């Protein structure tokens, strides 16, 4: 469980996060949604420590991350896996080396154990046998899957995914979404996904936080978001013609 308590953040005197208070639950896919430029990624970067919030606290299972020094933070970070928007694979390393990297860096596992773990993680994301490919030789979807394999290699307690579906076709997006959901349930980890993709929201959104103008605007799940009456949420959820059409059809059916 990750608790965010009254977190605020400014850049060059301009406040981008206002007093965010939220709990990301364990064993669930927690989504942070909202339009571009509303502070989703800033909040996520504050949680993982890439930005230091000016006010408030971040607690990872009651451990106050904001007060920790570099070494203590490093220990917590080894429990965090993160999938970046562009996958952020190390381009000089092969797929396998990318997955092995955290294991070689932070564990005392033998070479054989590391190899076994890397093979397992790659198999888990359906990339068995692709060990020797370079990131530049992988498609966007494959890179995301390698990113997930690298993120889970250390058996993380917390998984962060920054727009996991950006740049992917709808079918591959569903594969990635399902993978994130399966991994969350399988390992009972706290997963936080930043997205503005409504398909993902409907597919995996166990617990949703809607951010608007840097403020916590709404929270709920994928079922309640459809019926939310808040105008900002409504304009976000029904932004596409496809969703508008679904709403019209549902309303017709209800009548």
């Amino acid at each position, binding site marked *: 469980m990750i608790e965010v308590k009254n977190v605020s953040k400014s850049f060059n005197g301009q406040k981008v996060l206002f007093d965010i208070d939220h709990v990301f639950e364990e064993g669930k896919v927690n989504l942070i949604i909202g339009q571009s430029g509303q502070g989703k990624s800033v909040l996520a970067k504050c949680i*993982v*420590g*890439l930005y230091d919030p000016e006010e408030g606290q971040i607690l990872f299972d009651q451990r106050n991350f904001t007060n920790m020094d*570099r070494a203590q*933070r*490093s*220990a*917590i*970070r*080894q429990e*965090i896996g*993160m999938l*970046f*928007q*562009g996958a*952020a*694979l*190390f*381009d000089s390393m092969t797929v396998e080396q990318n997955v092995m*990297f*955290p294991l*070689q*860096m*932070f564990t005392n596992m033998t070479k054989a154990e590391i190899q076994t773990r890397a093979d397992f993680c790659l198999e888990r994301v359906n990339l068995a046998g692709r060990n020797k490919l370079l990131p530049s030789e992988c498609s966007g979807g494959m890179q995301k899957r390698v990113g997930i394999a690298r993120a889970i290699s*250390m058996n993380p307690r917390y998984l*962060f995914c920054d727009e996991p579906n950006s740049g992917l076709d709808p079918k591959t997006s569903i594969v990635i979404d399902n993978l994130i959901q399966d991994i969350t349930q399988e390992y009972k980890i706290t997963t936080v996904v930043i997205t503005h993709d409504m398909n993902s929201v409907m597919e995996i959104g166990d617990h949703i936080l809607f951010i608007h103008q840097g403020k916590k605007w709404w929270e709920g799940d994928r079922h309640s978001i459809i019926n939310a009456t808040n105008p900002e949420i409504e304009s976000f959820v029904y932004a596409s013609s496809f969703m508008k059409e679904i709403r019209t059809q549902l309303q017709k059916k209800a009548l």
Partner: protein
Amino acid sequence: MNLLKQFGQYILMLSVVFSRPDRWRFFWKHTLLEIEQIGINSLPIVALMSTFMGAVIALQTASSMESPLLPDYTVGFITQSSTILEFSPTIISLILAGKVGSNVASEIGTMRVTEQIDALEIMGVNSLNFLVLPKITAAFFFFPVLVIFSMALSMFGGWLSLLVSDLTTTEIYIMGIRSFFNPFHITYALTKTLVFGFLIVSIASFYGYYVKGGSLDVGRASTQAVVSGSIAILIANFILTQLMLLS
């Protein structure tokens, strides 16, 4: 004010760079790779520059020697002293500021804009130490080798040009090279090289690491790294010369 802020940020960066590596095995592995990347890969350009510059220094000196009072070995002596004192440590370092500086800044800058540095940080890796310390160590180990190599080739280039132009004999040239040789000049040259190597790599890493934006900004950071690195070399050259040769 901005310059002062940047200098402060640079000093803070160095305080993080010079910490104990998370894994020594990774550190030495990366240092060897960097020796290849920034050292061995610079050998061809250093060889080419040194040979031709040595040749030109020798020819220019020979062409300026009109007074019959000057001994014949002066050409060799001037080639030796200008190579050891200035050409090899300073001019070669300026060339390396261009080649290595832009390479380091663009490599680290690209890692920054593609979130690879964020990925390292989130894993708990001290990214500055992991990325920059092997580069500085490689420069410390290999830049002196490059400069000694440059000195040798420069004097060889001078000899070759004089021989081809029939301006002197091998014996007289070697006599000139050996005349008034001061071993402290080698210490001076290598000290300068170590300082320049450190400046080139650390300044380029600084510009690369703190780049914000996209590929255009990485390009700008590379240019800034080369310009700032070159200016730092010129200033450090002046200070070191004052301290080591004149005090």
